[in-house]
């Protein structure tokens, strides 16, 4: 029995990756939930918005890298991130002006907007593939570690190593900063409060003199920023591929719904719930169990509940269980 090594193994292969993935999902789900709360539909184009913002960031990163610009220990992509956000915001605002606004003026039913967002999804998907292609792209500046497995072993003298990559650390810190700013904005500023008011009761917001177009514009900008940050962090952590981002839609929707659509706190909770369940259920527990259990009764097999390819199934199962017991998600009522 060696509980310390068991814990380090668990931390290395489960806790750290799940925290990083959870932060990425949470940022993605925040975007979905904001659109749901304020524009009142589920945006099928959100995955592609993330891909678009990330693509801009990548292009700028490459440009900076070719200039030899860097941020020292931090990835160059962080330097390019503001440009990515700006590019993405510009694009979604143009989309809103050219596409969504018409339906808003018509007071179209939300489900019509869902179909509209499918069209936007196709277009964005096409644009991203057109510009950067369908292939995998890495844009980090090579693997970098806050602590590498070897350093950790040397430092602690333990058998197991705990590696924390720079990208993981940056993901978590950036996510915390972004979420803190968002919550401050929504709860403390006049514009943020007006967004919550608009989400709560559109007619009354109108009668209070809140300009819906402004609320919607600010929402899109925030969503573009969230999507770009989420996408860039995901890309730094893993890699960028247009199709993967499209596929992130399911776990992101699942996170947002588990937490309760329209609730920012819920989106964050949902993101971590989904991420942890995915990683826990698809992780091969053998090594941890061998350390944790007394000698001789460790498992023979991999002790993996489900193959990693079923990670979508896990998000979905969690979603189903939550909906069965709490049809409105975990944090209902607390809307944007």
């Amino acid at each position, binding site marked *: 029995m060696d509980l310390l090594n068991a814990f380090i193994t668990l931390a290395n292969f489960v806790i750290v990756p799940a925290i990083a993935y959870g932060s990425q999902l949470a940022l993605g789900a925040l975007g979905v939930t904001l659109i749901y709360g304020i524009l009142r539909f*589920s945006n*099928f184009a959100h995955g592609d918005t993330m891909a678009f913002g990330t693509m801009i960031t990548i292009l700028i990163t490459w440009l900076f890298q070719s200039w030899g610009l860097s941020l020292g220990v931090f990835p160059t992509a962080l330097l390019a991130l503001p440009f990515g956000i700006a590019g993405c915001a510009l694009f979604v605002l143009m989309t809103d002006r050219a*596409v969504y606004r*018409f339906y808003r003026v018509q007071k179209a039913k939300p*489900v*019509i907007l*869902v*179909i*509209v967002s*499918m*069209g*936007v*999804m*196709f*277009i*964005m*998907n*096409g*644009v991203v*593939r*057109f*510009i950067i*292609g*369908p292939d995998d792209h890495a844009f980090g500046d090579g693997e970098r570690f806050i602590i590498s497995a070897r350093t950790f072993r040397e430092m602690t003298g333990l058998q197991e190593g705990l590696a924390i990559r720079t990208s993981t650390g940056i993901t978590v810190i950036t996510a915390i900063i972004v979420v803190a700013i968002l919550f401050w904005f929504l709860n403390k500023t006049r514009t943020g409060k007006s967004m919550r008011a608009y989400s709560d009761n559109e007619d009354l917001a109108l009668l209070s003199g809140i300009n819906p177009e402004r609320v919607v514009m600010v929402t899109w900008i925030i969503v573009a920023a969230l999507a770009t940050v989420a996408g860039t962090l995901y890309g730094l952590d893993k890699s960028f591929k247009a*199709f993967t981002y*499209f*596929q992130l*839609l*399911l776990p992101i*929707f*699942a996170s947002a*719904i588990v937490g309760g659509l329209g609730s920012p706190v819920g989106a964050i909770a949902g993101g971590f719930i989904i991420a942890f369940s995915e990683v826990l259920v698809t992780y091969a527990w053998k090594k941890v169990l061998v350390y944790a259990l007394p000698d001789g009764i460790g498992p023979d097999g991999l002790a993996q*509940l489900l*193959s990693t*390819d*079923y990670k*979508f*199934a896990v*998000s*979905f199962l969690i*979603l*189903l269980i939550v*909906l*069965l017991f709490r*049809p409105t998600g975990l944090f209902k009522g607390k809307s944007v």
Partner: protein
Amino acid sequence: MNEMVKNTGLFALVAVLIVITGISQSWNTALLILNMGLISAIMALGVNLQWGFAGLFNVGVMGFVALGGLATVLIATPPTQGAWGAGGYAIVLGLIMGAATITAAVLVYQRMAKGRLRVFTMLAILIVGFYLFRAVFDSGVSTVEAINPASAGNIGGLGLPILLAWPVGGLLAAGVAWIIGKVALGLRSDYLAIATLGIAEIIIAVLKNEDWLARGVKNVIGLPRPVPFEVDLQRDPQFVERAAGFGMDPVTASTIYVKLEYAALFAVVLIILLWLAQKALNSPWGRMMRAIRDNEVAAEAMGKDVTRRHLQIFILGSAICGVAGAMMTTLDGQLTPGTYQPLRFTFLVWVMVIVGGSGNNFGAVLGGFLIWFLWVQVEPMGLWLMSTITSGMGDGALRSHLMDSAAHMRLFTMGLILLLVLRFSPRGLIPEK
């Protein structure tokens, strides 16, 4: 009458487009578009049944289509020697045990009084059940997958005629739709969209990973066909002679002949389904469906069980998608789980329905043909456009990038068409009456 002329004109336009393809490119291409157009039309019919008649938002079409594909393998491929004896029964037993575990857990939840005891009992049943299931199931799987993995490694099919797989594909899809519908439509407010989106991904994941079922990503190739093989036709002196009578060489003639036979088969299915859908639309059942759609509260007040009706139509629509999926895999002659993508198999079908005209069966069929034609032809058109635009550039990196990228024009175009139709003709090309 004016409307009739317009609608006929729209169908004629698609026919002309396909004929032009035949003349300018090749008749093989044209017929391939026609065949996939027929299948697309059937898929669109299924989705239209759900969205058009009942307002059900199914974004898991891909899953049902894939289930149809699975049916062809399970029905038509020859059985794998010894697979059933080795582990097939263990797999089935394992699956039954898994289902029994879930049923037991549900029963416990329904029957037992609320409290900690219930939670513990449920958890115990689920955990014990899961390990028993894995023990039985995994042993079966490993023995089956060990049988001749290079060419088989799965339990194989029943060796029955592949045409039988079409209705079976429908049944399979209907079965899964029943489960989804029971859960998602039964919730206090429905969550069908996310449920179907998730289930579709899960079905694809199962197809990719469960090698014992249909070889996973190793693909099943060389499925039996309901039509003769081209090589056999080319060897048939009678056929060669008749081909010569038309002034065609045997190779071209055989490929076209085979495609025409497929087209005939598909057309029969489409016509039957279209006829049934029209019948249903104008029957008391269809009228009630639309009454529910247009005013659910009133329908409920009249004592109609709305959830039940929704479940019915969801199952029917999904079954139609399953049939279409089986037909498509039959046409391809292979099952390749890696090629199922939501954009192509779910959202494209939605574009067909919306563009064609939701709530109108003929609209959906038209949308199926038209959008499929564009899906195929936008790529060469984009390439031609790009090469024209960039012809003055000289062979640089930008030009080659643009030429490569032209292939992705089709996604862009589909989105654009959907948005244009929604904006300027929101009821679609052939609107609901």
